């Protein structure tokens, strides 16, 4: 039997395989993006502004954080883990004309979610991570209520509606459909979070 040489491997399709892999990786890799809590700062106050409207004490939910990272909520010391529930109870109280509220209708708490304001006061010595944790809990309280009302009205949670709206793959047509829904929910539970300038010492 004669010794046969190995036939040459055809390398013509190698480039195809290479491009296939390249395209696969291109499609599957997501470039790391930052994420965080978005806020809007109030514009700079002009001089001789009209005095701010008087807000009833019952519509104000005061959260004070001191330099030891301790919380004082409505004049009571509170643990961070209880803040979300307390904020939800305050916002969702709905003592007057609020058909979608499920709160206790306590006459000493907020009138209506559209009037309820959360006021956050920091100390200059408060640590940043505590501040972020408090912000996170307050945003979570709003999201919880918005999710609830969105699920009962549209059968989809508010966060998922918003995620779909912000997704670049959503078509313009769908976005136009989602936008009024999101705005309606935001109107039911507007995010009214006021921040005072931190106190010294």
């Amino acid at each position, binding site marked *: 039997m*004669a*010794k*046969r*040489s*190995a*036939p*040459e*491997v055809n*390398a013509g399709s*190698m*480039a195809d395989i*290479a*491009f296939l*892999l*390249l395209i696969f*990786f*291109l499609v599957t*890799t997501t*470039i*790391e*993006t*930052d*994420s*965080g*809590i*978005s*806020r*809007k*700062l*109030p*514009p*700079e106050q002009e001089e001789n502004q009209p005095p701010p409207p008087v807000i009833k004490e019952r519509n104000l939910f005061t959260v004070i954080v001191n330099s030891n990272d301790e919380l004082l909520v409505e004049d009571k010391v509170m643990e*961070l*883990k209880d803040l979300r529930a307390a904020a939800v109870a305050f916002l969702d109280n709905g003592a007057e004309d609020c058909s979608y509220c499920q709160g206790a209708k306590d006459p000493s708490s907020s009138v209506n979610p559209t009037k309820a304001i959360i006021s956050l006061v*920091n*100390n*200059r*010595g*408060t*640590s*940043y*991570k*505590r*501040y*972020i*944790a408090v*912000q*996170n*809990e307050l*945003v*979570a309280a709003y*999201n919880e209520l918005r999710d609830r009302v969105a699920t009962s009205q549209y059968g989809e949670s508010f966060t998922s509606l918003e995620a779909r709206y*912000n997704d*670049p793959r959503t078509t313009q047509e769908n976005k136009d459909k989602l936008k009024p829904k999101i705005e309606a929910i935001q109107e039911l539970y507007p995010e009214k979070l006021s921040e005072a*300038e*931190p106190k010294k010492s």
Partner: protein
Amino acid sequence: MSKFNKKKSGDLPAISTASLPDIVFMLLFFFMVATTMRETTLMVKNNLPTANQVEKLDKKDLIMYIYAGKPVDRYQGTYGTSAKIQLNDKFADVGEIQDFIYQERASKREELVPFLTTALKVDGDSKMGLISDIKQELRKANALKINYVTKSGDAVKMN
């Protein structure tokens, strides 16, 4: 019989390396796409706090980054251990933030300026005094859209 004896040489034929450039280019493209360029070298400690109610920051070209925190060990001898602000590649004073914002605005196309967001990458152990100073400066510069960049995780347990 002779037609089976045509190839006599017993050497293995060389494997074609014609596709090697393809493979190399493929790897090159892959890494070009997947790597995010860090434009600034961090000179401050940047252990971000955690939160779970977060929004994604898309459109990297529309973000201005402000870093703050304690200087890293290498710079502590020169700059001390108190928390500092870093803009681009150098330590900055609170007063320089406004100029920084104006410069960043000038470098962007005019129609994109209203969409600019300031991302605050601040070390979790910093004090709020510094952050509120930064926020006051941003208000003065009328850069009102901000984002506190965080890691994702449970905010109550981790902080």
